[in-house]
């Protein structure tokens, strides 16, 4: 199989037109010692049904959210995805088009991006959003670059309430030297505005915080934004878009940049990718915006149409002075976001958010009533996710729950070895009462007899 349609007669005719005696002549410029000798050491081709069977076997070796009750979150959530979304994003017209550089034959993609940008601004309370970035983590990096450029300062103050992987990626990029990361330790899973204020020196370009925090806590965005801006720094929120259907958006509280991971708007969990980062800011920063941007205009007949605009910001034109090096983005996932928001609409998104909130609180209430199980963050307000402290190693409970086809949560020891008993639990609208009651029962059974017993050694990474 090679997806090449070519007969010998055609090949001969083509070579004749070229004036080459043999096809090999065409790559005569490649020195002989650089050529691959013989066939590549890889398997022979397989038929479609053989390949499908192979992948099905691999699929069966994974747990998935259809065969397990998934209480995993930590940035990736098992939300409802409408069938219409899958059908639309699978269309060749969207999936097999390139970046819309010829707008006359790309109006579908361009208008979809424009609508995506509009809806991201509605959710975040901002004025301009780009056409997507790789993921939530790199969106934070781009925000750090924008802030450093806009303020002429170098330190990015990052709350410990931000996803630990986002913080890791920030540190990776910071090793290039264009900004420096300084962390504010989280207090009870959230950011302390008082601690932030102490660290907000005149060298700080931005305060990066998360709404809700990694451990699910609803932050006081207004206080954090005031603290940042009071010190001349930008306030940058990494926000969850589902939460924004219900929570006050950082934009309404004055934040300068709102970024985040868009997976929870119609993108499958897909073992963590492809994801989609969104990036929204104020119009006053539009010339510093990273990545592509669609804008409306008119054609020669004065009909409305859309183009990629302000392209001189980008690498293909500004080269070493571009605001970002991004080229290929996550366009199809941004389209999925747009379709998702259109299908669910204002009412649907609010209902998803409300059900997450209600169900998470239901489960938190029930498990914390079990002997030996506590909520370490007490009565701090949370959204869809919360931490429970167990009477034994969290990874141990995770294993026990597996046997009942429950993915019980993400052990926080994965990120912080000093917290072997803490488990991060997420509840989406898809979890049923039956699944939650099953969770409580499983936990009750597992913790029976463990309450008060000394802690066994925990494996740090599940």
């Amino acid at each position: 199989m090679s997806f090449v349609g070519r007969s010998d007669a055609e090949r001969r005719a083509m070579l004749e037109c070229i004036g080459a005696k043999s096809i090999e002549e065409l790559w005569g410029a490649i020195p002989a010692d650089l050529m691959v000798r013989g066939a590549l050491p890889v398997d022979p081709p397989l038929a479609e049904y053989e390949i499908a069977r192979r992948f099905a076997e691999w699929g069966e070796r994974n747990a998935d959210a259809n065969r397990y009750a998934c209480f995993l979150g930590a940035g990736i959530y098992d939300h409802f995805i409408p069938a219409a979304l899958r059908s639309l994003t699978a269309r060749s017209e969207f999936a097999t088009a390139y970046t819309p550089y010829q707008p006359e034959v790309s109006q579908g993609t361009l208008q979809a991006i424009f609508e995506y940008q509009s809806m991201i601004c509605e959710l975040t309370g901002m004025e301009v959003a780009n056409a997507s970035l790789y993921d939530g983590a790199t969106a934070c990096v781009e925000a750090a670059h924008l802030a450093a450029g806009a303020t002429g300062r170098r330190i990015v103050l990052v709350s410990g309430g931000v996803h630990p992987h986002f913080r890791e990626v920030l540190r990776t990029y910071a090793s290039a030297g264009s900004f420096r990361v300084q962390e504010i330790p989280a207090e009870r899973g959230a950011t302390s505005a008082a601690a932030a204020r102490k660290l907000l020196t005149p060298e700080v370009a931005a305060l990066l915080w998360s709404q809700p925090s990694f451990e699910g806590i609803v932050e006081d965005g207004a206080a954090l934004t005031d603290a940042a801006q009071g010190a001349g720094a930008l306030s940058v929120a990494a926000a969850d878009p589902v939460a924004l259907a219900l929570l006050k958006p950082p934009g309404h509280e004055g934040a300068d940049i709102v970024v985040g991971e868009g997976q929870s708007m119609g993108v499958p969990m897909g073992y963590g990718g492809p994801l989609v980062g969104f990036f929204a800011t104020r119009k006053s920063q539009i010339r510093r915006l990273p990545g592509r941007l669609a804008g409306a205009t008119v054609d020669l007949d004065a009909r409305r149409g859309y183009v990629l605009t302000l392209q001189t910001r980008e690498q293909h034109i500004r080269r070493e002075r571009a605001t970002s090096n991004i080229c290929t983005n996550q366009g199809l996932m941004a389209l999925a976001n747009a379709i998702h928001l259109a299908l669910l609409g204002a009412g649907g998104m609010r209902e998803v958010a409300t059900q997450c909130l209600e169900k998470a609180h239901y489960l938190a209430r029930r498990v914390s009533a079990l002997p030996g199980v506590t909520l370490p963050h007490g009565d701090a307000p949370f959204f869809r996710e919360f931490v429970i402290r167990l009477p034994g190693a969290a990874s141990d409970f995770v294993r026990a729950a597996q046997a009942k086809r429950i993915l019980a949560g993400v052990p926080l020891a994965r990120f912080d070895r000093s917290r072997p008993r803490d488990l991060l639990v997420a509840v989406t609208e898809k979890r049923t009462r039956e699944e939650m009651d099953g969770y409580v029962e499983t936990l009750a059974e597992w913790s029976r007899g463990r309450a008060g017993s000394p802690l066994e050694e925990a494996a740090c990474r599940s």
Partner: protein
Amino acid sequence: MNVPKELRYTKEHEWVRVRGQEAEVGITDYAQGELGDVIFVELPAVGTRVSHMKPLGTIDAVKTVSDLFAPVSGEIVAVNTELKENPALVNQSPYERGWMVRIKMAALAETESLLSADGYEKVLGAIA
């Protein structure tokens, strides 16, 4: 191609209007035509020191960016703030309303190295 006789020029397609100690600077009719629709002009703040043939700003057109070089050394004493709202002035009126900065010259002698209108027309002739 409009090349006013009374102005001086650089090979980089800037024009200079010398008035006493001050040099008013913009880009030529030819340059605006090559760039196409100008969408943004980034200029330094008043008070910035600039040096001979070093970039002092950038001019963004729809699909290109180009540097604006300082034809003479000195201090920026005025920038055309109208370009912020209306960058199209660079296209519509390159030699008048599309001016960009005024530089208080540090060394008047530097103007000697600038091209005359005839000299600049020769440069254009070589390109065509």
